[in-house]
């Protein structure tokens, strides 16, 4: 039997996305899966589903609000009340304050809750850590917690689902530093990093509010998890597949147009072309085929459609040395509806990270702007520079792949 996969939602965005992800995934759970799959466990009554999840936020007020929202409206899920760990002071959008424990992040409590969840399973297969890289809690606490999880559960696969900085109205110049330091500390400890950003999401959803954007990301994660829940693959296999082609663990999330009249073949093309990517990178970078891709789509397309989609996939995604995994979910309708999602490693991720994180970060480092705050919280100047070097290494690895 497959082991547990524990979802961890961190910070305001992380909690909201993780909650949405688990809720849609639960509606997709076949009633025959009496044990509740890797992501859930069933209560003794055989009906009630408990997610194998822990949520954490440092902000006491926002955290409490999130907690109430979570426990009020998550049917068919039941949340264990102590699986939500709320701190006493917010991180004020500073990676350093959460990472260095300037505010009480309550990591021992979070780890204790994770242990409580894992103790109820035979083994832990993996973690899905959902967070934003903009916020202080999302970047700092996620990085620190992942380090601890790596020590305590060395064999489990660790997947991060992260939002990159965006340029919308709520953005802050501090996001750049949070993202650079967050990625620097997080990425060495994880096997996969699914990327999205709110700029791309808000464009996709027609300048919608956070609720809709978080929902879109949550649904994408649901489709990422479905093949694993259905037993078609394992988290480890998915991670290995990506890591076989790139040294950096990044995957970009993209979604097909959910309009049913578009044929599966066209959907595959759209997804592979990155037209509906959840992370903004120029369409020109998509002219090259992806390095690897995992496609998840519903069996509601006619069989012929699915076949031609498969062909299209091998033609495009398998070009050159790249590879694709594709999964057809047998039950046609579920929480995610008909949307097709792709999780793609692509050479375009390099330039995207360069434009979105590395370049702004380098400018701040060069001018010593905002960096003194991180230093005051205990981040050494050497770490600040090392974060830039890490970014450069990943970006170069993509450049080498596309050459």
């Amino acid at each position, binding site marked *: 039997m497959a082991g547990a996969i524990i979802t961890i939602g961190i910070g305001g965005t992380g909690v909201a996305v993780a909650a949405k992800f688990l809720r849609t995934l639960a509606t997709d759970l076949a009633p025959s899966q009496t044990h509740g799959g890797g992501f859930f466990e069933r209560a003794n009554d055989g009906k009630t589903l408990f997610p194998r999840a822990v949520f954490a936020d440092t902000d006491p007020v926002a955290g409490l609000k999130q907690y109430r929202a979570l426990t009020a409206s998550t049917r068919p899920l039941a949340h264990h009340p102590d699986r939500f760990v709320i701190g006493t002071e917010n991180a004020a*959008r500073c990676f350093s304050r959460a990472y260095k424990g300037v505010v009480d992040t309550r990591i021992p409590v979070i780890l204790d809750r994770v242990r409580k969840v894992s103790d109820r399973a035979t083994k832990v297969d993996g973690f899905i850590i959902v967070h934003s890289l903009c916020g202080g809690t999302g970047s700092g606490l996620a990085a620190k917690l992942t380090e601890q999880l790596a020590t305590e559960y060395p064999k489990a696969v660790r997947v991060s689902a992260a939002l990159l900085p965006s*340029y919308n109205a*709520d953005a802050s110049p501090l996001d750049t530093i949070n993202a650079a330091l967050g990625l620097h500390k997080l990425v060495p400890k994880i096997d996969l990093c699914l990327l999205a950003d709110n700029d791309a999401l808000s464009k996709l959803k027609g300048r919608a509010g956070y609720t809709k954007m978080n929902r879109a990301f949550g649904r994408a994660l649901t489709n990422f998890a479905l093949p694993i829940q259905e037993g078609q693959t394992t988290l480890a296999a998915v991670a290995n597949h990506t890591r076989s082609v790139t040294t950096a663990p990044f995957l970009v999330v993209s979604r097909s147009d959910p309009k049913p009249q578009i044929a599966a073949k066209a959907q595959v093309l759209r997804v592979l072309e990155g037209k509906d990517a959840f992370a903004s990178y120029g369409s020109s970078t998509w002219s090259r085929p992806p390095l690897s891709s995992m496609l998840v789509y519903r069996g509601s397309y006619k069989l012929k459609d699915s076949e031609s989609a498969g062909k299209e996939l091998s033609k495009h995604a398998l070009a050159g040395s790249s590879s694709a995994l594709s999964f057809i979910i047998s039950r046609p309708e579920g929480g995610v509806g008909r949307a097709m999602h792709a999780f793609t490693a692509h050479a375009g991720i390099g330039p995207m990270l360069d434009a979105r994180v590395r370049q702004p970060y380098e*400018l701040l480092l060069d001018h010593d702007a905002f960096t003194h705050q991180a230093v005051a919280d205990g981040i050494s100047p050497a770490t600040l520079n090392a974060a830039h070097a890490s970014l450069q290494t990943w970006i170069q690895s993509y450049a080498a792949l596309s050459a």
Partner: protein
Amino acid sequence: MASTISIHVGGTGIRLGQRLWDVIFADHGVSASGSVTGQSVGSGSGFLAKTGTRFVPRAIVADSDTDAIGALSSWSHRSLLKPDNIVFGSASCANNFATGYLHRTSLRDDVLTRVNATVASVSDDNPTFLLTHSLAGGTGGGLTAALVQELRSQHPGSTIVCCGVLRDKSLSSIAVAPYNEVFALDKIHQFADLVVVLDNAALTASVTAKFGQVASNYTGHNQLAARALGLLTSANRLPVRESLGFRQLARTLTPFTDLKLVGLAMGTWGSSASSDLVAGLQTGHNRISGIRVSGNKLLSPMFITSKRRKLSATEFRSDSRLRIPSWYPPAVPVVETRSTDASSLLVENNTGVHHRLTALVTEFDRMFKRKAFLHYYKGKGLSELMMAQARKNVFDLAKGFKDAG
């Protein structure tokens, strides 16, 4: 959000504080009896404390004499102030920084007792302290400096935001004001996390532009400044999305260590374009901190606006008139709030503040060279060396701003 404890020090600080509370009460619909009419006060809980069914300000007023405090009696919301939180001494500081800074220790400790009692009543680890005060006065400058210094050592994790008023030379007759301003600015800038500069000279220009004349008691000045501070705090009280704590605000606005002075510009907004707003915020009489636009760099901006129109951070970032340096990240923070004030506020860490500081140091030097009025300060225990050090610090601050970015 973090609780905020407001402390209003000295005559100017109290009058400005009163106007600020008027704005806060209006925003949250708090009546003179403390009941809430209209929308929920919930998001204002950082500023207001609930006692029974009443919402009362989490505020402390302090002065070395009773003039300004006595004048509060005509204030409609006066009864909401906790009597204990009205702290006053028996003798004014007579416009001497040294008196307020060094010789009002028992008054300072009384204020701190009230502050700590208020701190004990909130659930936050590190509440924010928001101070309003003048820089030129003996109490506003001196007592505030002593308070801020003590608050910093007693509450190292708290955020301290000081809103200091610089005098208008043409209206103020205090000869020693430049001394007080330099000494106060030096100490307050050293210990606070953020110092919001309000320039009465610039406010005079705005008030004159609006009403054609200025009132002798600075009512117009304080009302205008309070509207700006109301918008500034509304990012904490009434955000449309995420609440912006004062720590985040302070950190977002201070890209460089030791350049913690920020200015305000308040403008209304005709059309829907952000360029229109930028133009308004560049106009002289909207710049109530007296920071010149031309030839200066905007080191860190923040827009606070009541939610009327969709704003794009990138539009502001690419607007060359704002003179945001090229190293600044693509994201300019724009906070949408539900403030009842339809104006928009630009909070800016601007190199242009060095003009004002340099002018202040020049005024200071003019007297200091001739040792004019120095005996007032020496007699109260401020050595010439300490004065020279304060002058150097403010001079260096001006230079730091001039060379930054």
